[in-house]
């Protein structure tokens, strides 16, 4: 059982480190059990949430939000390998389409696929990433953010109001293995006392030609990934203005363009360059207006317009033309209003309404040209008294689709209730016991409904019920010394699961509401920080998930009551970091237990677990307002051969360096 030992090691190391560290300094032997302000802490809430802050993010230097998300308990990142590879997350095995994504409080959505590629969200300027179960409890969020089963929220430096009256700028260069270059530059400047502008430009390119091993017994070979290159550019302009009445308006314009190869799954005996290319151009503009409308109430208005162009090219397609090119254009306009009102010291209420219209164009024959009106309305109540905290939220979702060819599906309505309770045994107790229930829906995406051949307009929304019971505790000592820990057990039920059923030949798949899944699991997470003598600081973080997700779709099939594909029983991550004066170092480990790659839990379909270790070392030099830093990163230092999705190999040991200068 060497794998068990690994898990044990991974679980215990941060604690051991923390204890050792603690013992070194006898003056800090007793941890003060001080209740921390709920807003500033990372785990303490009725709805389970986990935060990855700047302190850790800076040390692990993830290449994208998708890489960072691997550090959360209960989150499985579907990673197709490489910088250009698709990365989606599934929280507690509900699937990527049940996870909402917020960037600075504004929903990021892809109506075509229903899933957001987290590989495309830049980590530059990200201050923190939060995963919240059920929904995010940040005040005045749009109604749409309550629609998913879980929310991944990314907050950038632009999310905080800027009041500085000086120019700020920074430049960074990342370079690493397999032809990776990522220069970026940002500027923040005051236009007037109350108006600030900021801009970011980032260029990213990678050849992605990493070596890997094809394991096929006597026919095994060593290869290099082909057609896995990417070039992308991100440009962002940010404008904020504070009005005299302390209300604010924040606007954001961003453009992302990329051109990449789609290397595809590795195919035995035919591991040729697929030649397939994907081009993206995405433009979005968003604005948020916030105002405190009295001592008891606040309002927020937000709007967004988004346009995404995608071109897919297959130069070897075996039709008469000899190639296939598809062009897609996706548009969405979205408006939201939210209000919160404190009724009494114990009771407060909130309301949010969103309206969106999205449409999709494609140069496909017989294409439906779907358009979708969506309306979300959410009302919430919160009651707090004597250590008891109760929340109720009811979301109504309404969807109306129109199409140019064929008949549109019926309008869909769904009610999503969330009930949450937290209870603290004593007023100053470090412990909080929590429970929640949520019934949520995912509307079928445009691809589910209208994709030529596979789309099925009769699809119903997929339903997810979540039940959670947990405990969280936190202790805070002298500044910089803290320990948060939480453990939750959960039971999820997915019904009317939308699954693709292949048909009589390669061209006929169809989407059906056939699936049912039961998911039972436990998430454990902990984070601890210590400041020691002689300018030493220590930081440790741990996330562990145990889950069992079984397929209850069809008793007649061999997959019945089998574990769902890609749902390891055990998975987790650990981080340990140390800082001394201007130096900081970090160790990150990722772990996945064995899992099945197909629904049939036959040994032939089982793949071994894997573990990776990453190391980092960083030195920063401060000169008044200027700072310069150099970081060295070694990822997968033990050169583990593994893939997250079978036959999409992940890179082995690789290196990168980061140079940064800034004036803040």
């Amino acid at each position, binding site marked *: 059982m060497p794998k068990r030992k690994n898990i044990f090691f991974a679980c215990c190391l941060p604690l051991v480190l923390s204890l050792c560290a603690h013992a070194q300094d006898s003056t800090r032997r007793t941890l003060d059990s001080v209740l921390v302000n709920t807003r500033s802490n990372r785990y303490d809430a009725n709805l389970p949430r986990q935060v990855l802050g700047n302190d850790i993010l800076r040390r692990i230097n993830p290449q994208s939000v998708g890489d960072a998300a691997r550090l959360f308990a209960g989150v499985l990142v579907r990673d197709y390998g490489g910088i250009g590879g698709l990365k989606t997350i599934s929280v507690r095995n509900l699937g990527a389409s049940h996870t909402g994504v917020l960037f600075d409080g504004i929903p990021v959505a892809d109506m075509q696929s229903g899933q957001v590629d987290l590989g495309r969200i830049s980590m530059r300027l990200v201050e923190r990433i939060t995963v919240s179960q059920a929904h995010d409890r940040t005040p005045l969020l749009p109604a749409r953010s309550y629609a998913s089963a879980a929310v991944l929220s990314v907050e950038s430096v632009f999310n905080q109001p800027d009041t500085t009256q000086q120019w700020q700028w920074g430049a960074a260069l990342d370079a690493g293995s397999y032809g990776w270059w990522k220069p970026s530059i940002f500027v923040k400047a005051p236009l007037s006392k109350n108006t600030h502008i900021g801009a970011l430009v980032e260029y990213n390119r990678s050849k992605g030609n990493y070596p890997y091993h094809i394991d096929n017994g006597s026919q095994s070979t060593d290869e290099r990934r082909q057609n896995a290159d990417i070039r992308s550019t991100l440009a962002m302009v940010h404008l904020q203005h504070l009005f005299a009445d302390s209300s604010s308006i924040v606007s954001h314009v961003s453009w992302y363009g990329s051109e990449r190869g789609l290397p595809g799954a590795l195919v035995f005996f035919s591991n040729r360059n697929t030649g397939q290319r994907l081009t993206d151009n995405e433009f979005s503009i968003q604005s948020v207006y916030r105002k405190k409308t009295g001592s008891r109430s606040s309002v927020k208005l937000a709007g967004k317009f988004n346009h995404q162009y995608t071109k897919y090219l297959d130069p070897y397609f075996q*039709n008469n033309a000899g190639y296939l090119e598809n062009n897609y254009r996706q548009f969405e306009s979205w408006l939201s209003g939210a209000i919160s009102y404190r009724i009494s010291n114990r009771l407060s209420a909130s309301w949010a309404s969103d309206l969106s219209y999205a449409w999709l164009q494609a140069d496909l024959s017989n294409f439906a040209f779907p358009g979708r009106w969506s309306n979300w309305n959410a009302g919430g109540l919160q009651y707090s008294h004597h250590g008891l905290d109760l929340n109720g939220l009811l979301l109504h979702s309404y969807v109306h689709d129109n199409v140019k060819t064929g008949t549109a599906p019926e309008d869909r309505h769904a009610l999503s209730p969330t009930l949450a309770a937290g209870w603290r045994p004593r007023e100053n107790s470090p412990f909080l016991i929590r429970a929640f229930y949520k019934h949520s829906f995912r509307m079928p995406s445009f691809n589910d409904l209208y994709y030529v051949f596979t789309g099925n307009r009769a699809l119903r929304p997929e339903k997810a019920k979540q039940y959670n019971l947990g405990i969280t505790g936190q202790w805070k000592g002298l500044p910089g010394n803290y320990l948060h820990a939480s453990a939750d057990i959960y039971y999820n039920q997915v019904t009317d699961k939308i699954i693709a059923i292949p048909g009589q030949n390669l061209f006929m798949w169809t989407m059906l509401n056939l699936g049912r899944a039961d998911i039972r699991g436990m998430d454990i997470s902990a984070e601890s920080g210590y400041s020691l003598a002689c300018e030493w600081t220590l930081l440790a973080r741990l996330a562990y998930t145990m889950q069992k997700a079984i397929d209850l779709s069809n008793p007649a099939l061999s997959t019945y009551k089998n574990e769902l594909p890609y749902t390891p029983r055990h998975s987790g991550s650990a981080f340990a970091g140390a800082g001394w004066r201007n130096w900081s170092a970090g160790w990150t480990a990722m772990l996945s237990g064995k899992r099945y790659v197909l629904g049939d839990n036959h040994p032939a379909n089982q793949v071994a677990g894997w573990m990776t270790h990453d190391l980092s070392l960083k030195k920063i030099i401060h000169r008044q307002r200027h700072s310069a830093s150099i970081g060295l990163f070694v990822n997968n230092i033990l050169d583990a051969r593994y893939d997250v999705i079978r036959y999409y190999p992940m890179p082995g040991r690789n290196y990168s360096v980061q140079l940064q200068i800034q004036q803040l």
Partner: protein
Amino acid sequence: MKKMKWMIPALSMAVVVAGCRKDDSPVVPTPVTAGVYVLNEGNWGKNNTTLTYYDLNTSKASTDFYESVNGSKLGDTGNDILIYGSKLYIVMNVSSYVEVAEAATARSIKKIEMTNGGSDRSPRYAIPYKNKVLISSYDGTVAVLDTASLTIDQFITVGSNPEQMEIVGDKLYVANSGGLNFPVYDSTISVVDLLTMKETSKIKVGISPVKLAAGDGNLFVICSGNYMDVGPELVSVSLTTDRGIIRRDFNGGAIRYYDGKLFASTGYGAASPGVSVLSPASLATTTENFISDGTTVTTPYGLNVDPETGDVFVTDAKDYVSSGEVFCFDKTGKKKYSFMVTPGIGPNKAVIVKK
């Protein structure tokens, strides 16, 4: 061609390895008694094509038989399997090669790469003809493989995305599906003169012909339709008279002609899945359900008839992502035996090993 450079050492290695194994392989060849091979195509991109060997004496099915004999997997999307002479031919569509193995042992003899420059030919079906095996490929060709030298003599150009083939006399009929040409598919059958190995004419049948059977001087064709306003149909072309074409709307999965009967399995999404018997002359249904003992086949996929015994093999693809099953019925439609091909997915053809 640059991309292909690595393939040369890789392939020569494969050949060397395969060649060596004949002499000094640690795997002792299992003597194979009369049984059934089943090709399980697996799922696209998952390299999980498997071969099942069902032993008629022990009534045991072993999957993946190919891997247990050869120590390596077949690869991605095995589309057709054929025994001709002493050899077994497996057509690997996505892995784009043809596996040639000893029929008795499934021991690999050679992998015949089906590529054209840097791109895959994507072979689909194989049919034997006078010491040759003819292989249709999605790139619009039929390869002529010499069964002695195991090299390809030539490629015959046919229509787009050819699928199944039939041979009547010295004529080869190829179903040109044009399946990758949505929304305007092909709708012809290529006629190839096997004495000259040239396409001589094309017969127009219906939209996207895919499956073929021949008998009674007729060619029977399942056309998929265009998945929009034209549905699937069954077409009969007389090869001996000029009576023209008979057609009927028919959602058929596979067709086989045997002993004056046309067997057809139900196609995708059929309300009552099963196998029916049709009249070759009129295409009218003579027996609604060939399976006479109440056995249920969830999703009939492959359909074969043992020409000697008249046993009918029906493979059951279930939901195409879980383990499949194979049924053998006697002439009267009574089940003789059945077996699961676990963990094989999408069994698409059963072939009989005679010894």
